[in-house]
């Protein structure tokens, strides 16, 4: 069986632009992703999924499927050996649906067979009789419809009590006097569609029974230990009998925080006593993970004639879909960063996430801040227009910085160079307008453009976005690292951080080489057996947390070796400064801080719109981002360019479409992501201002570009067309026929 092997690097200390340790096996095709794994005697698993968004299961008949060629097992909810439900934060999601399905594509049964095609045919032969129930699909009406979860799984966890049905979390942040009047008021209602992470490597993994009742699961995931802590109870096993190993990850972006095939594969493997491989296809992948929450956001901004914000009132409604996932934290993040990085003494922010029968939503890069950044920055553009002030000047005038107070009452203690990123992004020179006529490939719509560009209008947009780094609201956020330091000075590092493509492995190796003063360092394949939890590769936290843990473990190992001589093996746990929850009634901080740290990015965009055809082209993007300290500048630029592309996708093309809760575009033919023709050059300036609380001054860099870029791209389209453009993705109809 193949899996990721320990890797050895030759070069690179902190601050060096180095090639990835895994780049060579990735360019040669040797790197083993979770869908590439094989084992002797392996069976293939397939998941039977609900064709309805909301239905009662009347009858489940597996007898025909069981009799089919090559079939070794067909399992239903009755076969779940332990706890019947699981969840990242609240166990509200059935391992396999019991009496009721709540979303289109919900797992109902499992099949294991010798060949994948046999498993697929047997899955089609599992007979499920459904009684369809009217689905809850309108998030505005959800709180008036019958509850999807009668036991209210997210209530009584210290959140604001809300008696309405289908509320996942309701949060109010009240600061100062929200009724304070300004000279001028602008308002708007903004909509954000459902975005998919669309990682290229499908959900997949291999479960191998150990012959003693336990199981090893090799899977592409973002948090090994929390996978284990969800899988083991459902299997009825103690945690040590379930070992989760990181297989090669083909992108994540939040979509691998929740479980996909882990429990299912393990159930089939334990039942058949054979290794079982499950690989989703692209259509199934759209059902296999949670998405970015669609949102409706109502805003009212009041300001003085001079442009100073006086009061901001924002109401946010998020559709969490059928199960909670990380919706409670998304609802909070949306609220905490709703206004953007601006000073305002008075604010009222209300954020509500509801259960519906739409696709389940959870973590995606930017995590709540993307949706509100789009709305808040549209408001800033509107305000600038109304006041006749330059949009960049208006943002500078209100820029939030160190020592300022957030609407939650938290004083920003670390570094937040909002004004600096605005100035630096605004100073990037914009390319000259290109003459017409020109090659169609350089027109909006590319080769699909049939005109000579008569209808092309150009616009320049600007936006600023910020969000938190690391976990918040009192979560005990830590990362463990273990260092085996040998007498000859060579070292093996253990850290269960998930390398999802972001480059955390290189961060770990660069830190270890720097601290140990040697290039002779390897990182062992990450797993749950050899080291404590690393926490999740999410919330832009992994670089900060892994750097802290590996630094501390390396320093402890050196000290220990100095004392005892010979080989030493030490494990250390790193925690960032403690956070505390928000007050459930007022949304104000109950301690010093609810969030550890923040990162901010500003972006300038040039775009063209062919208003005759409704086609768009982003010409150029320039951005300045607060990165703390760039451990590997090449990787940081890569994060900025890639994160920008995902925000551009949400602005212009990416949306999961549903009809009565059913996804209608579950393919890359119908769900479009940016191609090489859609992406303009991205010029990025890294603002390095060390974060005092962070190891080496680092900040996470993955999310800010995604937070800001949707807003910045639409700002440019707004400038080109003069239209309000209150919905993303912007559709051709929204910009055609001026």
């Amino acid at each position, binding site marked *: 069986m193949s899996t990721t092997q320990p890797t050895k690097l030759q070069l690179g200390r902190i601050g060096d*632009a180095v*090639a*990835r340790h*895994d*780049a*060579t096996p*990735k*360019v*040669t*095709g*040797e*790197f*083993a*992703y979770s*869908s*590439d794994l094989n084992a002797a005697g392996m069976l293939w698993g397939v998941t039977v999924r609900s064709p309805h968004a909301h239905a009662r299961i009347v009858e489940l008949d597996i007898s025909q499927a069981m009799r089919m060629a090559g079939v070794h097992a067909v399992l239903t909810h009755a076969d779940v050996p332990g706890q019947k439900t699981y969840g990242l934060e609240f166990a509200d999601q059935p391992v396999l649906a019991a009496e009721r399905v709540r979303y289109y594509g919900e797992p109902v049964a499992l099949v294991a067979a010798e060949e994948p*095609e046999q498993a697929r045919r047997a899955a089609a032969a599992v007979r499920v009789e459904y009684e369809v129930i009217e689905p809850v699909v309108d998030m505005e009406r959800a709180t008036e419809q019958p509850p999807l979860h009668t036991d209210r799984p997210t209530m009584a966890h210290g959140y604001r009590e809300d008696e309405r049905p289908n509320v996942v979390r309701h949060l109010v942040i009240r600061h100062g006097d929200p009724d304070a009047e300004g000279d001028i008021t602008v308002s708007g209602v903004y909509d954000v569609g459902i975005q998919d*992470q*669309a*990682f*290229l*490597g*499908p959900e997949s993994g291999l479960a191998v029974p150990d012959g003693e009742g336990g199981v090893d699961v090799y899977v592409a995931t973002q948090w090994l230990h929390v996978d284990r802590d969800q899988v083991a109870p459902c299997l009825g096993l103690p945690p040590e009998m379930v070992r989760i190993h990181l297989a*090669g*990850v*083909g*992108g*994540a972006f939040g979509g691998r925080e929740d479980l996909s095939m882990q429990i299912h594969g393990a159930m089939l493997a334990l039942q058949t006593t054979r290794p079982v491989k499950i*690989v989703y*296809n*692209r259509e199934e992948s759209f059902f296999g993970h949670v998405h970015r929450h669609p949102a409706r956001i109502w805003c009212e901004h009041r300001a003085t004639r001079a442009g100073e914000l006086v009061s901001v009132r924002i109401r946010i409604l998020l559709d969490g879909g059928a199960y909670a996932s990380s919706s409670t934290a998304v609802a909070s993040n949306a609220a905490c960063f709703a206004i953007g990085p601006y000073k305002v003494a008075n604010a009222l922010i209300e954020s509500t996430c509801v259960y519906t029968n739409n696709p389940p939503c959870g973590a995606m890069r930017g995590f709540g801040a993307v949706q509100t950044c789009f709305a808040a920055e549209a408001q800033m553009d509107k305000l600038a227009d109304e006041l006749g002030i330059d949009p960049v000047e208006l943002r500078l005038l209100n820029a939030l910085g160190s020592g300022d107070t957030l609407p939650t009452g938290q004083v920003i203690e670390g570094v937040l160079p909002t004004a600096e990123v605005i100035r630096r992004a605004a100073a990037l020179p914009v390319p000259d307008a290109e003459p017409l006529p020109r*090659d169609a*490939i*350089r027109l909006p719509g*590319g*080769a699909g453009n049939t005109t000579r560009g008569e209808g092309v209008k150009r616009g320049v947009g600007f936006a600023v976005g910020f969000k938190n780094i690391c976990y918040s609201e009192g979560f005990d956020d830590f990362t463990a690292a273990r260092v085996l330091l040998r007498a000859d000075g060579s070292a093996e590092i253990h850290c269960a951080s998930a390398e999802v*493509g*972001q*480059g955390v492995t290189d961060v770990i190796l660069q830190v270890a080489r720097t601290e140990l003063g040697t290039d002779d360092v390897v990182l062992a394949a990450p797993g749950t057996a050899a080291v404590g939890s690393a926490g999740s590769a999410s919330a832009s936290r992994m670089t900060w947390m892994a750097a802290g843990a590996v630094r501390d473990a390396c320093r402890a190992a050196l000290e220990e070796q100095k004392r005892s001589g010979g080989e030493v093996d030490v494990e250390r746990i790193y925690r960032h400064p403690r956070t505390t929850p928000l007050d459930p009634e007022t949304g104000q901080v109950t301690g010093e801080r609810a969030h550890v740290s923040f990162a901010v990015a500003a972006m300038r965009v040039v775009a063209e719109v062919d208003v005759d055809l409704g086609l768009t082209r982003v010409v150029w993007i320039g951005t300045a981002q607060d990165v703390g300290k760039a451990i590997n500048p*090449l*990787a940081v*630029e*890569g994060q900025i*360019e*890639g*994160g*920008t*592309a*995902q925000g551009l996708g949400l602005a212009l093309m990416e949306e999961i479409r549903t009809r009565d809760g059913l996804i209608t575009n579950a*393919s*890359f*033919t119908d769900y479009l*992501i*940016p*191609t*090489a*023709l859609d*992406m303009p*050059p*991205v010029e990025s300036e890294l603002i390095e201002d060390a974060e005092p609380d962070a190891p080496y001054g680092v900040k996470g860099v993955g999310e800010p570009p995604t937070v800001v870029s949707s807003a910045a791209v639409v700002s440019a389209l707004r400038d080109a067309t003069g239209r309000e453009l209150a919905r993303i993705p912007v559709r051709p109809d929204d910009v055609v026929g001026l």
Partner: protein
Amino acid sequence: MKIRLVVNGEAREADVWAGESLLTALRDTLELPGSKNACEQGECGSCSVLLDGDLVCACLVLAAQADGHEVTTVEGLRSEDGLHRVQQAFVEAGAVQCGFCTPGLVVATAALLERVPSPSDDVIREELSGNLCRCTGYAKIFDAVRLAASRA
């Protein structure tokens, strides 16, 4: 059914069923998992291979259609002297993140540079527009293509 084909210069035989794609045959039967299974409907280019020298999506070719033909996969680009210049350029330029699209892009770029040794930026963008990448935003991939072209 049995098919005979030449893969990466080596005569191979595979037992496939009539509906099986070349991609599945390469990955599961011929033990060449370098070509990737990201969409399996010809939209993402992750399974790009050369069929008698032409760039194709292996997921859209039946294994049976490859009977009697020559296939080059990403595994076949590396020679005894080391990495193909396109592979080397992808490593150096930082064009790889999660890497799932990389095999397809490497094969597509190698095919492009065979036909057009010094492509303009617009040609690079158009030629690689059939290969989706979700991580990089393509900037460093373009850098890699230019770097590889400069080393012809």
